[in-house]
Protein backbone atom coordinates (compact mmCIF):
# COMPACT_ATOMS: atom_id res chain seq x y z
CA UNK A 1 0.00 0.00 0.00
CA UNK A 2 1.19 3.46 -0.84
CA UNK A 3 2.30 5.76 1.96
CA UNK A 4 -0.41 7.94 3.54
CA UNK A 5 0.20 11.57 4.45
CA UNK A 6 -2.03 14.12 6.14
CA UNK A 7 -2.27 17.02 3.70
CA UNK A 8 -4.31 20.10 2.94
CA UNK A 9 -6.17 19.92 -0.37
CA UNK A 10 -4.25 22.75 -2.02
CA UNK A 11 -0.91 21.22 -1.00
CA UNK A 12 -1.96 17.80 -2.25
CA UNK A 13 -2.88 19.32 -5.60
CA UNK A 14 0.55 20.99 -5.77
CA UNK A 15 2.51 17.90 -4.76
CA UNK A 16 0.39 15.81 -7.11
CA UNK A 17 1.26 18.09 -10.01
CA UNK A 18 4.98 17.88 -9.21
CA UNK A 19 4.82 14.07 -8.97
CA UNK A 20 3.08 14.12 -12.34
CA UNK A 21 6.08 15.93 -13.79
CA UNK A 22 5.22 19.62 -13.36
CA UNK A 23 8.40 21.71 -13.52
CA UNK A 24 7.06 25.22 -14.04
CA UNK A 25 4.47 27.14 -12.06
CA UNK A 26 3.32 30.76 -12.23
CA UNK A 27 0.59 32.09 -10.01
CA UNK A 28 -0.83 35.05 -8.13
CA UNK A 29 -2.25 35.17 -4.60
CA UNK A 30 -5.99 34.73 -4.20
CA UNK A 31 -7.97 33.03 -1.44
CA UNK A 32 -8.78 30.13 -1.09
CA UNK A 33 -5.93 28.74 -3.24
CA UNK A 34 -2.92 30.51 -1.69
CA UNK A 35 -1.31 27.30 -0.48
CA UNK A 36 -0.71 26.25 -4.09
CA UNK A 37 1.75 29.03 -5.05
CA UNK A 38 3.17 28.94 -1.51
CA UNK A 39 3.90 25.23 -1.77
CA UNK A 40 5.23 25.48 -5.32
CA UNK A 41 7.59 28.33 -4.37
CA UNK A 42 9.78 26.11 -2.14
CA UNK A 43 8.99 22.69 -3.57
CA UNK A 44 9.67 23.25 -7.29
CA UNK A 45 13.32 24.34 -6.80
CA UNK A 46 13.91 21.05 -4.93
CA UNK A 47 13.14 19.12 -8.11
CA UNK A 48 14.93 21.49 -10.48
CA UNK A 49 11.76 23.31 -11.50
CA UNK A 50 10.97 27.02 -11.67
CA UNK A 51 8.42 29.12 -9.78
CA UNK A 52 7.38 32.67 -10.59
CA UNK A 53 5.02 34.84 -8.59
CA UNK A 54 3.46 36.84 -11.38
CA UNK A 55 2.18 40.41 -11.13
CA UNK A 56 -1.35 39.29 -12.06
CA UNK A 57 -3.35 36.27 -13.11
CA UNK A 58 -3.16 37.59 -16.67
CA UNK A 59 0.60 37.50 -16.57
CA UNK A 60 0.69 34.11 -14.82
CA UNK A 61 -1.37 32.37 -17.50
CA UNK A 62 0.83 33.90 -20.19
CA UNK A 63 3.98 32.71 -18.43
CA UNK A 64 2.42 29.27 -18.51
CA UNK A 65 1.55 29.79 -22.19
CA UNK A 66 5.24 30.46 -22.85
CA UNK A 67 6.54 27.62 -20.68
CA UNK A 68 3.96 25.23 -22.10
CA UNK A 69 5.15 26.04 -25.61
CA UNK A 70 8.54 24.57 -24.72
CA UNK A 71 6.88 21.23 -23.96
CA UNK A 72 7.45 21.22 -20.18
CA UNK A 73 4.67 20.13 -17.87
CA UNK A 74 3.51 23.41 -16.37
CA UNK A 75 0.76 24.72 -14.15
CA UNK A 76 -1.04 27.78 -12.91
CA UNK A 77 -3.74 27.95 -10.27
CA UNK A 78 -6.28 30.44 -9.06
CA UNK A 79 -9.79 30.89 -7.74
CA UNK A 80 -12.88 32.19 -9.52
CA UNK A 81 -12.12 35.93 -10.08
CA UNK A 82 -8.55 35.03 -11.01
CA UNK A 83 -9.68 32.30 -13.38
CA UNK A 84 -11.85 34.89 -15.13
CA UNK A 85 -8.69 36.93 -15.72
CA UNK A 86 -6.92 33.87 -17.12
CA UNK A 87 -9.57 33.16 -19.72
CA UNK A 88 -7.85 35.13 -22.48
CA UNK A 89 -4.71 33.04 -22.01
CA UNK A 90 -6.64 29.78 -21.78
CA UNK A 91 -8.33 30.58 -25.08
CA UNK A 92 -4.93 31.24 -26.70
CA UNK A 93 -3.54 28.00 -25.25
CA UNK A 94 -6.52 26.11 -26.66
CA UNK A 95 -6.01 27.85 -30.00
CA UNK A 96 -2.30 27.02 -30.01
CA UNK A 97 -2.96 23.40 -28.88
CA UNK A 98 -0.87 23.78 -25.73
CA UNK A 99 -1.17 21.17 -22.96
CA UNK A 100 -1.23 23.52 -19.98
CA UNK A 101 -2.71 22.56 -16.60
CA UNK A 102 -4.88 24.84 -14.45
CA UNK A 103 -6.01 24.38 -10.85
CA UNK A 104 -9.29 26.18 -10.09
CA UNK A 105 -10.31 26.34 -6.43
CA UNK A 106 -13.76 27.91 -6.81
CA UNK A 107 -15.24 30.50 -4.43
CA UNK A 108 -18.57 32.31 -4.26
CA UNK A 109 -19.43 34.79 -7.01
CA UNK A 110 -20.20 36.68 -9.17
CA UNK A 111 -17.85 39.60 -8.67
CA UNK A 112 -15.67 39.54 -5.60
CA UNK A 113 -18.38 37.36 -4.01
CA UNK A 114 -16.79 35.72 -1.00
CA UNK A 115 -13.92 33.40 -0.19
CA UNK A 116 -15.79 30.23 0.72
CA UNK A 117 -16.12 27.11 -1.41
CA UNK A 118 -18.68 27.23 -4.23
CA UNK A 119 -19.51 25.59 -7.55
CA UNK A 120 -20.65 28.61 -9.54
CA UNK A 121 -17.97 28.32 -12.23
CA UNK A 122 -19.17 25.08 -13.83
CA UNK A 123 -20.38 26.84 -16.96
CA UNK A 124 -17.15 28.82 -17.25
CA UNK A 125 -15.03 25.68 -16.91
CA UNK A 126 -17.03 23.38 -19.16
CA UNK A 127 -18.12 25.84 -21.85
CA UNK A 128 -14.69 27.16 -22.68
CA UNK A 129 -14.77 30.33 -20.60
CA UNK A 130 -12.72 32.43 -22.97
CA UNK A 131 -13.55 33.48 -26.52
CA UNK A 132 -13.83 31.15 -29.48
CA UNK A 133 -14.71 27.52 -30.16
CA UNK A 134 -12.75 25.26 -27.83
CA UNK A 135 -12.85 22.77 -25.00
CA UNK A 136 -10.79 22.12 -21.88
CA UNK A 137 -10.50 18.71 -20.23
CA UNK A 138 -12.07 19.26 -16.78
CA UNK A 139 -11.81 16.92 -13.79
CA UNK A 140 -13.72 17.35 -10.53
CA UNK A 141 -12.12 15.72 -7.46
CA UNK A 142 -14.19 15.09 -4.35
CA UNK A 143 -11.39 14.35 -1.88
CA UNK A 144 -7.88 15.45 -1.04
CA UNK A 145 -6.55 12.16 -2.41
CA UNK A 146 -8.23 12.86 -5.74
CA UNK A 147 -6.78 16.38 -5.74
CA UNK A 148 -3.39 14.72 -5.37
CA UNK A 149 -3.86 12.17 -8.13
CA UNK A 150 -5.87 13.97 -10.81
CA UNK A 151 -2.99 16.14 -12.14
CA UNK A 152 -1.42 12.95 -13.50
CA UNK A 153 -4.50 12.20 -15.62
CA UNK A 154 -4.80 15.84 -16.66
CA UNK A 155 -1.23 15.90 -18.02
CA UNK A 156 -1.74 12.57 -19.78
CA UNK A 157 -4.87 13.75 -21.56
CA UNK A 158 -3.48 17.24 -22.19
CA UNK A 159 -0.33 15.95 -23.87
CA UNK A 160 -2.00 13.13 -25.76
CA UNK A 161 -4.74 15.32 -27.26
CA UNK A 162 -3.05 18.72 -27.00
CA UNK A 163 -5.54 20.84 -25.06
CA UNK A 164 -5.60 22.71 -21.74
CA UNK A 165 -6.82 20.74 -18.73
CA UNK A 166 -8.30 21.88 -15.45
CA UNK A 167 -8.91 20.47 -12.00
CA UNK A 168 -12.13 22.12 -10.85
CA UNK A 169 -12.36 21.97 -7.06
CA UNK A 170 -13.62 24.45 -4.47
CA UNK A 171 -12.54 26.26 -1.34
CA UNK A 172 -13.72 23.50 0.96
CA UNK A 173 -11.68 20.80 -0.78
CA UNK A 174 -8.72 23.16 -1.11
CA UNK A 175 -8.70 24.01 2.58
CA UNK A 176 -9.57 20.70 4.21
CA UNK A 177 -7.05 18.16 5.49
CA UNK A 178 -7.30 14.45 4.89
CA UNK A 179 -5.01 11.43 4.72
CA UNK A 180 -3.67 11.35 1.17
CA UNK A 181 -2.53 8.39 -0.84
CA UNK A 182 -0.50 9.02 -3.99
CA UNK A 183 -1.61 6.18 -6.24
CA UNK A 184 -0.47 7.48 -9.63
CA UNK A 185 3.09 6.74 -10.77
CA UNK A 186 5.70 9.43 -10.27
CA UNK A 187 6.82 10.99 -13.54
CA UNK A 188 10.45 11.96 -14.11
CA UNK A 189 10.28 14.65 -16.84
CA UNK A 190 13.72 13.57 -18.08
CA UNK A 191 12.20 10.29 -19.25
CA UNK A 192 9.53 12.02 -21.37
CA UNK A 193 10.17 12.50 -25.07
CA UNK A 194 10.10 16.08 -26.26
CA UNK A 195 6.92 16.78 -28.22
CA UNK A 196 7.40 17.35 -31.97
CA UNK A 197 5.97 20.87 -31.66
CA UNK A 198 7.99 22.07 -28.65
CA UNK A 199 10.07 25.25 -28.93
CA UNK A 200 13.67 25.09 -27.76
CA UNK A 201 17.27 24.45 -28.71
CA UNK A 202 16.82 23.31 -32.29
CA UNK A 203 20.24 21.92 -33.35
CA UNK A 204 19.56 22.73 -36.96
CA UNK A 205 16.05 21.30 -37.35
CA UNK A 206 13.40 23.39 -39.12
CA UNK A 207 11.98 26.29 -37.08
CA UNK A 208 8.79 25.74 -35.11
CA UNK A 209 5.95 28.20 -34.52
CA UNK A 210 3.39 28.15 -31.72
CA UNK A 211 0.41 30.32 -32.61
CA UNK A 212 -3.38 30.42 -32.49
CA UNK A 213 -4.12 32.50 -35.61
CA UNK A 214 -4.59 31.82 -39.29
CA UNK A 215 -5.82 34.72 -41.39
CA UNK A 216 -6.28 32.67 -44.56
CA UNK A 217 -9.93 32.27 -45.53
CA UNK A 218 -11.13 29.04 -43.94
CA UNK A 219 -7.89 28.60 -42.01
CA UNK A 220 -9.36 28.75 -38.52
CA UNK A 221 -12.27 26.56 -39.63
CA UNK A 222 -9.79 23.85 -40.56
CA UNK A 223 -7.93 24.26 -37.25
CA UNK A 224 -11.11 24.04 -35.18
CA UNK A 225 -12.49 21.08 -37.14
CA UNK A 226 -9.24 19.19 -36.62
CA UNK A 227 -9.62 19.89 -32.89
CA UNK A 228 -13.21 18.67 -32.98
CA UNK A 229 -11.92 15.25 -34.01
CA UNK A 230 -9.67 15.21 -30.94
CA UNK A 231 -12.57 16.35 -28.74
CA UNK A 232 -14.62 13.41 -30.04
CA UNK A 233 -11.78 11.03 -29.25
CA UNK A 234 -11.59 12.40 -25.71
CA UNK A 235 -15.35 11.97 -25.26
CA UNK A 236 -15.04 8.36 -26.38
CA UNK A 237 -11.98 7.40 -24.35
CA UNK A 238 -11.52 9.68 -21.37
CA UNK A 239 -14.96 10.17 -19.80
CA UNK A 240 -14.96 9.23 -16.11
CA UNK A 241 -17.65 8.83 -13.48
CA UNK A 242 -18.40 6.99 -10.25
CA UNK A 243 -21.59 5.22 -9.20
CA UNK A 244 -22.84 4.36 -5.73
CA UNK A 245 -25.83 2.14 -4.98
CA UNK A 246 -27.43 2.70 -8.36
CA UNK A 247 -28.14 -1.02 -8.96
CA UNK A 248 -31.59 -0.90 -7.35
CA UNK A 249 -32.03 2.86 -7.23
CA UNK A 250 -35.28 4.57 -8.19
CA UNK A 251 -33.84 8.04 -7.80
CA UNK A 252 -30.32 9.09 -8.69
CA UNK A 253 -28.54 12.07 -7.21
CA UNK A 254 -26.20 13.64 -9.76
CA UNK A 255 -23.46 15.62 -8.04
CA UNK A 256 -19.77 16.38 -8.45
CA UNK A 257 -16.96 17.49 -6.17
CA UNK A 258 -17.85 18.59 -2.65
CA UNK A 259 -21.58 18.29 -3.39
CA UNK A 260 -21.06 14.63 -4.22
CA UNK A 261 -19.35 14.22 -0.87
CA UNK A 262 -22.41 15.62 0.92
CA UNK A 263 -24.68 13.59 -1.35
CA UNK A 264 -23.14 10.31 -0.17
CA UNK A 265 -24.31 11.14 3.35
CA UNK A 266 -27.71 12.20 1.98
CA UNK A 267 -27.97 8.91 0.09
CA UNK A 268 -27.23 6.87 3.21
CA UNK A 269 -29.79 8.86 5.19
CA UNK A 270 -32.38 8.34 2.49
CA UNK A 271 -31.69 4.61 2.44
CA UNK A 272 -32.30 4.52 6.20
CA UNK A 273 -35.66 6.14 5.50
CA UNK A 274 -36.45 3.42 3.00
CA UNK A 275 -35.85 5.48 -0.14
CA UNK A 276 -34.02 3.73 -2.98
CA UNK A 277 -31.48 6.45 -3.70
CA UNK A 278 -28.15 6.11 -5.49
CA UNK A 279 -25.42 8.55 -6.55
CA UNK A 280 -24.03 9.27 -9.97
CA UNK A 281 -20.84 11.35 -9.76
CA UNK A 282 -19.36 12.83 -12.93
CA UNK A 283 -15.57 12.86 -12.48
CA UNK A 284 -14.89 14.47 -15.83
CA UNK A 285 -17.17 17.51 -16.24
CA UNK A 286 -16.02 17.90 -19.81
CA UNK A 287 -16.48 15.43 -21.29
CA UNK A 288 -19.69 15.01 -19.29
CA UNK A 289 -20.67 11.32 -18.93
CA UNK A 290 -23.82 11.72 -21.04
CA UNK A 291 -23.98 8.21 -22.48
CA UNK A 292 -24.00 6.56 -19.06
CA UNK A 293 -26.78 8.84 -17.80
CA UNK A 294 -28.86 7.89 -20.84
CA UNK A 295 -28.28 4.20 -20.05
CA UNK A 296 -29.33 4.74 -16.44
CA UNK A 297 -32.51 6.50 -17.55
CA UNK A 298 -33.81 3.18 -18.89
CA UNK A 299 -34.69 2.24 -15.32
CA UNK A 300 -34.25 5.40 -13.25
CA UNK A 301 -37.06 7.89 -13.70
CA UNK A 302 -35.91 10.61 -11.29
CA UNK A 303 -32.60 12.40 -11.43
CA UNK A 304 -31.86 15.13 -8.93
CA UNK A 305 -28.94 17.45 -9.54
CA UNK A 306 -27.37 18.66 -6.31
CA UNK A 307 -24.93 21.52 -6.64
CA UNK A 308 -23.57 24.61 -4.90
CA UNK A 309 -24.56 27.07 -7.62
CA UNK A 310 -27.79 28.48 -9.04
CA UNK A 311 -28.07 25.26 -11.04
CA UNK A 312 -25.48 24.87 -13.77
CA UNK A 313 -24.51 21.20 -14.08
CA UNK A 314 -28.22 20.37 -14.14
CA UNK A 315 -28.29 21.61 -17.74
CA UNK A 316 -25.83 18.91 -18.76
CA UNK A 317 -28.05 16.33 -17.09
CA UNK A 318 -31.04 17.67 -19.03
CA UNK A 319 -29.09 17.76 -22.28
CA UNK A 320 -28.06 14.15 -21.78
CA UNK A 321 -31.52 12.92 -20.84
CA UNK A 322 -33.36 14.99 -23.44
CA UNK A 323 -36.68 14.41 -21.67
CA UNK A 324 -36.17 10.71 -20.98
CA UNK A 325 -36.59 11.05 -17.18
CA UNK A 326 -37.68 13.68 -14.69
CA UNK A 327 -34.90 16.10 -13.73
CA UNK A 328 -34.99 17.90 -10.40
CA UNK A 329 -32.64 20.45 -8.92
CA UNK A 330 -31.51 21.21 -5.41
CA UNK A 331 -29.04 24.06 -5.61
CA UNK A 332 -27.53 26.62 -3.23
CA UNK A 333 -25.56 29.51 -4.73
CA UNK A 334 -23.22 32.00 -3.11
CA UNK A 335 -20.93 29.48 -1.37
CA UNK A 336 -23.71 28.38 0.99
CA UNK A 337 -23.01 24.81 2.02
CA UNK A 338 -25.61 22.15 1.38
CA UNK A 339 -26.23 19.56 4.06
CA UNK A 340 -27.24 15.93 3.85
CA UNK A 341 -30.42 16.30 5.88
CA UNK A 342 -31.79 18.98 3.53
CA UNK A 343 -30.93 16.96 0.43
CA UNK A 344 -32.62 13.92 1.93
CA UNK A 345 -35.75 15.91 2.81
CA UNK A 346 -35.98 17.24 -0.74
CA UNK A 347 -35.72 13.71 -2.15
CA UNK A 348 -38.44 12.55 0.23
CA UNK A 349 -40.74 15.38 -0.89
CA UNK A 350 -40.21 14.54 -4.55
CA UNK A 351 -40.64 10.79 -4.20
CA UNK A 352 -43.36 10.58 -1.57
CA UNK A 353 -45.33 13.78 -2.16
CA UNK A 354 -44.67 14.40 -5.85
CA UNK A 355 -43.32 17.88 -5.05
CA UNK A 356 -43.07 20.00 -8.19
CA UNK A 357 -41.09 22.96 -6.86
CA UNK A 358 -37.79 21.21 -7.46
CA UNK A 359 -38.44 20.40 -11.10
CA UNK A 360 -35.56 21.72 -13.17
CA UNK A 361 -36.57 24.60 -15.45
CA UNK A 362 -37.16 23.33 -18.97
Amino acid at each position, binding site marked *: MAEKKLMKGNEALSEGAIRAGCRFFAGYPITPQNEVPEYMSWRLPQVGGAFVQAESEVSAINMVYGAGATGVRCMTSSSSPGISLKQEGISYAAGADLPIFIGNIMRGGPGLGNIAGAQGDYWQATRGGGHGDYRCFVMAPNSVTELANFPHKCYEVSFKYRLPSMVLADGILGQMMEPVEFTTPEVDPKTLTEPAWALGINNGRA*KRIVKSYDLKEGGVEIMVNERVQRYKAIEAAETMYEEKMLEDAEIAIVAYGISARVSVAAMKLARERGLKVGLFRPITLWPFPKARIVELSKRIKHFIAVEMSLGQMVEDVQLALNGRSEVHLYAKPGASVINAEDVCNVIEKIVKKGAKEYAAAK
Partner: protein
Amino acid sequence: MQLLNKHPESLLDVKMHYCPGCGHGIIHRLVAEVMDELNIRTKTIGVAPVGCAVFADTYFNCDMIQGPHGRGPAEATGIKRAKPDSIVFSYQGDGDLASIGMAEIVHAAIRSENITVIFVNNAIYGMTGGQMAPTTLMGQKATTCVDGRTAKQAGYPIKMSEMLATVDGATYLERTTVHTAPGVLKTKSAIKKAFQNQIDCKGFSMVEILSMCPTNWGTRLDNPSEATKFVAEGMLPVFPLGVYKDLKRD
Protein backbone atom coordinates in the same frame (compact mmCIF):
# COMPACT_ATOMS: atom_id res chain seq x y z
CA MET B 1 33.60 40.33 -57.04
CA GLN B 2 33.42 40.07 -53.27
CA LEU B 3 30.12 39.63 -51.40
CA LEU B 4 30.14 42.12 -48.54
CA ASN B 5 26.67 41.59 -47.17
CA LYS B 6 24.36 38.63 -47.54
CA HIS B 7 20.81 37.97 -46.46
CA PRO B 8 20.99 36.99 -42.79
CA GLU B 9 20.36 33.31 -42.11
CA SER B 10 18.18 34.29 -39.15
CA LEU B 11 15.68 36.04 -41.44
CA LEU B 12 13.68 34.03 -43.96
CA ASP B 13 13.80 35.31 -47.53
CA VAL B 14 10.06 35.83 -47.80
CA LYS B 15 7.86 38.72 -48.86
CA MET B 16 6.95 40.87 -45.84
CA HIS B 17 3.58 42.56 -45.43
CA TYR B 18 4.98 45.85 -44.09
CA CYS B 19 4.00 49.12 -45.77
CA PRO B 20 6.44 51.15 -47.85
CA GLY B 21 8.60 53.29 -45.59
CA CYS B 22 7.84 51.30 -42.43
CA GLY B 23 10.73 50.71 -40.05
CA HIS B 24 9.88 47.13 -39.06
CA GLY B 25 11.69 45.58 -42.04
CA ILE B 26 14.92 47.38 -41.12
CA ILE B 27 14.60 46.39 -37.46
CA HIS B 28 13.85 42.74 -38.34
CA ARG B 29 17.00 42.65 -40.43
CA LEU B 30 19.08 44.15 -37.62
CA VAL B 31 17.82 41.60 -35.09
CA ALA B 32 18.54 38.81 -37.57
CA GLU B 33 22.05 40.06 -38.32
CA VAL B 34 22.78 40.18 -34.59
CA MET B 35 21.47 36.61 -34.15
CA ASP B 36 23.80 35.51 -36.96
CA GLU B 37 26.79 37.37 -35.56
CA LEU B 38 26.28 36.01 -32.04
CA ASN B 39 25.65 32.55 -33.49
CA ILE B 40 22.49 32.08 -31.43
CA ARG B 41 19.89 31.34 -34.13
CA THR B 42 19.45 27.68 -33.26
CA LYS B 43 18.78 28.40 -29.59
CA THR B 44 16.72 31.55 -29.91
CA ILE B 45 12.98 31.69 -29.28
CA GLY B 46 11.25 34.88 -30.38
CA VAL B 47 7.93 36.21 -29.10
CA ALA B 48 5.80 37.97 -31.71
CA PRO B 49 3.32 40.63 -30.53
CA VAL B 50 -0.17 41.59 -31.53
CA GLY B 51 0.11 44.57 -33.85
CA CYS B 52 1.93 45.21 -37.09
CA ALA B 53 4.71 42.74 -36.21
CA VAL B 54 2.29 39.87 -35.53
CA PHE B 55 3.67 37.98 -38.54
CA ALA B 56 7.23 38.26 -37.24
CA ASP B 57 6.74 34.61 -36.29
CA THR B 58 6.85 33.74 -40.00
CA TYR B 59 9.78 36.06 -40.85
CA PHE B 60 12.46 35.13 -38.31
CA ASN B 61 14.24 31.85 -38.95
CA CYS B 62 14.20 30.68 -35.35
CA ASP B 63 11.55 29.12 -33.11
CA MET B 64 8.74 31.63 -32.59
CA ILE B 65 5.62 32.02 -30.48
CA GLN B 66 2.70 34.37 -31.01
CA GLY B 67 0.37 35.11 -28.10
CA PRO B 68 -2.05 37.62 -26.56
CA HIS B 69 -1.72 41.39 -26.99
CA GLY B 70 0.86 42.90 -24.65
CA ARG B 71 1.80 39.69 -22.86
CA GLY B 72 5.11 39.12 -24.65
CA PRO B 73 7.30 39.72 -21.57
CA ALA B 74 5.19 37.20 -19.59
CA GLU B 75 5.47 34.60 -22.36
CA ALA B 76 9.20 35.30 -22.60
CA THR B 77 9.47 34.82 -18.82
CA GLY B 78 7.81 31.42 -18.98
CA ILE B 79 10.02 30.31 -21.86
CA LYS B 80 13.25 31.54 -20.29
CA ARG B 81 12.49 30.00 -16.87
CA ALA B 82 11.44 26.70 -18.43
CA LYS B 83 14.42 26.62 -20.86
CA PRO B 84 17.19 28.72 -19.29
CA ASP B 85 19.68 27.71 -22.00
CA SER B 86 17.62 29.32 -24.75
CA ILE B 87 17.90 32.96 -25.84
CA VAL B 88 14.53 34.70 -25.67
CA PHE B 89 13.46 37.99 -27.18
CA SER B 90 10.12 39.78 -27.16
CA TYR B 91 9.38 42.04 -30.14
CA GLN B 92 6.71 44.65 -29.38
CA GLY B 93 5.13 47.85 -30.60
CA ASP B 94 4.06 50.83 -28.51
CA GLY B 95 0.39 49.86 -28.18
CA ASP B 96 1.39 46.34 -27.22
CA LEU B 97 4.15 47.27 -24.77
CA ALA B 98 3.20 50.68 -23.38
CA SER B 99 -0.60 50.40 -23.26
CA ILE B 100 -2.19 46.96 -22.84
CA GLY B 101 1.09 45.32 -21.83
CA MET B 102 2.32 48.00 -19.43
CA ALA B 103 2.15 45.71 -16.39
CA GLU B 104 3.97 42.85 -18.11
CA ILE B 105 6.91 44.97 -19.31
CA VAL B 106 7.34 46.79 -16.00
CA HIS B 107 7.27 43.59 -13.97
CA ALA B 108 9.63 41.76 -16.31
CA ALA B 109 12.03 44.64 -15.63
CA ILE B 110 11.32 44.52 -11.88
CA ARG B 111 12.22 40.80 -11.83
CA SER B 112 15.27 41.62 -13.97
CA GLU B 113 14.10 38.82 -16.21
CA ASN B 114 17.06 37.71 -18.32
CA ILE B 115 15.40 38.50 -21.65
CA THR B 116 15.86 40.93 -24.54
CA VAL B 117 13.05 43.29 -25.54
CA ILE B 118 12.89 45.01 -28.91
CA PHE B 119 10.45 47.89 -28.49
CA VAL B 120 9.40 49.63 -31.70
CA ASN B 121 7.92 53.05 -30.99
CA ASN B 122 6.15 54.71 -33.90
CA ALA B 123 3.68 56.74 -31.83
CA ILE B 124 0.57 55.19 -33.39
CA TYR B 125 -1.51 51.99 -33.61
CA GLY B 126 -0.55 50.70 -37.03
CA MET B 127 -2.28 47.35 -37.58
CA THR B 128 -5.69 48.58 -36.47
CA GLY B 129 -5.51 51.68 -38.66
CA GLY B 130 -4.01 54.67 -36.91
CA GLN B 131 -5.62 55.07 -33.49
CA MET B 132 -3.97 57.11 -30.76
CA ALA B 133 -1.19 55.28 -28.91
CA PRO B 134 0.16 56.00 -25.42
CA THR B 135 3.21 57.39 -27.24
CA THR B 136 1.24 59.60 -29.64
CA LEU B 137 2.64 63.14 -29.54
CA MET B 138 0.73 66.18 -28.29
CA GLY B 139 -1.30 67.55 -31.18
CA GLN B 140 -0.62 64.51 -33.37
CA LYS B 141 -3.69 63.44 -35.32
CA ALA B 142 -5.00 59.91 -35.03
CA THR B 143 -8.31 58.24 -35.88
CA THR B 144 -9.38 58.41 -32.21
CA CYS B 145 -8.22 62.03 -31.81
CA VAL B 146 -9.00 63.54 -35.19
CA ASP B 147 -8.08 67.10 -34.17
CA GLY B 148 -4.87 65.99 -32.51
CA ARG B 149 -4.01 64.64 -29.07
CA THR B 150 -4.88 67.01 -26.23
CA ALA B 151 -3.79 66.79 -22.62
CA LYS B 152 -7.34 67.36 -21.42
CA GLN B 153 -8.66 64.40 -23.36
CA ALA B 154 -5.76 61.93 -23.32
CA GLY B 155 -2.88 63.13 -21.16
CA TYR B 156 0.70 62.98 -22.34
CA PRO B 157 2.96 60.55 -24.24
CA ILE B 158 4.68 57.93 -22.06
CA LYS B 159 8.48 57.75 -22.12
CA MET B 160 9.14 54.08 -21.50
CA SER B 161 12.94 54.13 -21.36
CA GLU B 162 12.94 56.98 -18.85
CA MET B 163 10.29 55.27 -16.75
CA LEU B 164 11.96 51.85 -16.75
CA ALA B 165 15.27 53.52 -15.82
CA THR B 166 13.76 54.05 -12.37
CA VAL B 167 13.32 50.29 -11.96
CA ASP B 168 16.25 48.69 -10.13
CA GLY B 169 15.84 45.44 -12.04
CA ALA B 170 16.37 47.02 -15.47
CA THR B 171 19.95 46.36 -16.60
CA TYR B 172 20.23 48.03 -19.99
CA LEU B 173 17.95 50.56 -21.64
CA GLU B 174 18.77 52.49 -24.77
CA ARG B 175 16.65 54.54 -27.15
CA THR B 176 17.74 54.62 -30.77
CA THR B 177 16.18 55.45 -34.13
CA VAL B 178 16.07 53.96 -37.62
CA HIS B 179 15.13 57.15 -39.49
CA THR B 180 18.76 57.82 -40.46
CA ALA B 181 21.62 55.58 -41.62
CA PRO B 182 23.78 56.36 -38.57
CA GLY B 183 20.72 55.66 -36.43
CA VAL B 184 20.35 52.24 -38.05
CA LEU B 185 23.98 51.38 -37.28
CA LYS B 186 23.64 52.59 -33.71
CA THR B 187 20.43 50.59 -33.35
CA LYS B 188 22.24 47.46 -34.44
CA SER B 189 24.96 47.84 -31.82
CA ALA B 190 22.31 48.48 -29.15
CA ILE B 191 20.43 45.32 -30.19
CA LYS B 192 23.67 43.38 -30.11
CA LYS B 193 24.42 44.58 -26.62
CA ALA B 194 20.90 43.69 -25.47
CA PHE B 195 21.38 40.11 -26.69
CA GLN B 196 24.96 39.88 -25.38
CA ASN B 197 23.68 40.90 -21.93
CA GLN B 198 21.29 37.96 -21.99
CA ILE B 199 24.07 35.58 -23.04
CA ASP B 200 26.09 36.94 -20.10
CA CYS B 201 23.07 36.52 -17.75
CA LYS B 202 22.94 40.22 -16.89
CA GLY B 203 19.18 40.56 -16.71
CA PHE B 204 16.56 42.73 -18.36
CA SER B 205 17.60 44.62 -21.50
CA MET B 206 15.39 46.72 -23.77
CA VAL B 207 16.10 48.74 -26.87
CA GLU B 208 13.45 51.34 -27.69
CA ILE B 209 13.59 52.09 -31.39
CA LEU B 210 11.90 55.13 -32.92
CA SER B 211 10.42 54.08 -36.23
CA MET B 212 8.36 55.39 -39.15
CA CYS B 213 4.71 54.76 -39.95
CA PRO B 214 4.01 56.75 -43.13
CA THR B 215 0.69 55.01 -43.71
CA ASN B 216 -0.93 55.98 -40.42
CA TRP B 217 0.89 59.26 -39.93
CA GLY B 218 -0.61 60.42 -43.18
CA THR B 219 2.77 61.40 -44.58
CA ARG B 220 3.32 60.86 -48.31
CA LEU B 221 4.16 57.29 -49.28
CA ASP B 222 6.01 58.52 -52.38
CA ASN B 223 8.12 60.86 -50.30
CA PRO B 224 9.66 58.97 -47.37
CA SER B 225 11.48 62.07 -46.17
CA GLU B 226 8.16 63.39 -44.83
CA ALA B 227 8.09 60.49 -42.38
CA THR B 228 11.75 60.74 -41.40
CA LYS B 229 11.16 64.46 -40.87
CA PHE B 230 8.32 63.60 -38.47
CA VAL B 231 10.73 61.45 -36.46
CA ALA B 232 13.42 64.13 -36.47
CA GLU B 233 11.21 67.11 -35.67
CA GLY B 234 8.28 65.53 -33.85
CA MET B 235 9.55 62.49 -31.99
CA LEU B 236 13.18 63.24 -31.15
CA PRO B 237 12.41 66.25 -28.91
CA VAL B 238 9.91 64.14 -26.94
CA PHE B 239 11.87 60.88 -27.02
CA PRO B 240 15.56 61.85 -26.78
CA LEU B 241 18.01 59.21 -27.95
CA GLY B 242 20.58 57.76 -25.61
CA VAL B 243 21.51 55.18 -23.02
CA TYR B 244 19.12 55.38 -20.08
CA LYS B 245 20.57 52.55 -18.05
CA ASP B 246 23.66 50.42 -18.36
CA LEU B 247 24.42 48.48 -15.21
CA LYS B 248 27.43 46.25 -14.88
CA ARG B 249 26.02 43.19 -13.20
CA ASP B 250 28.12 40.16 -12.30
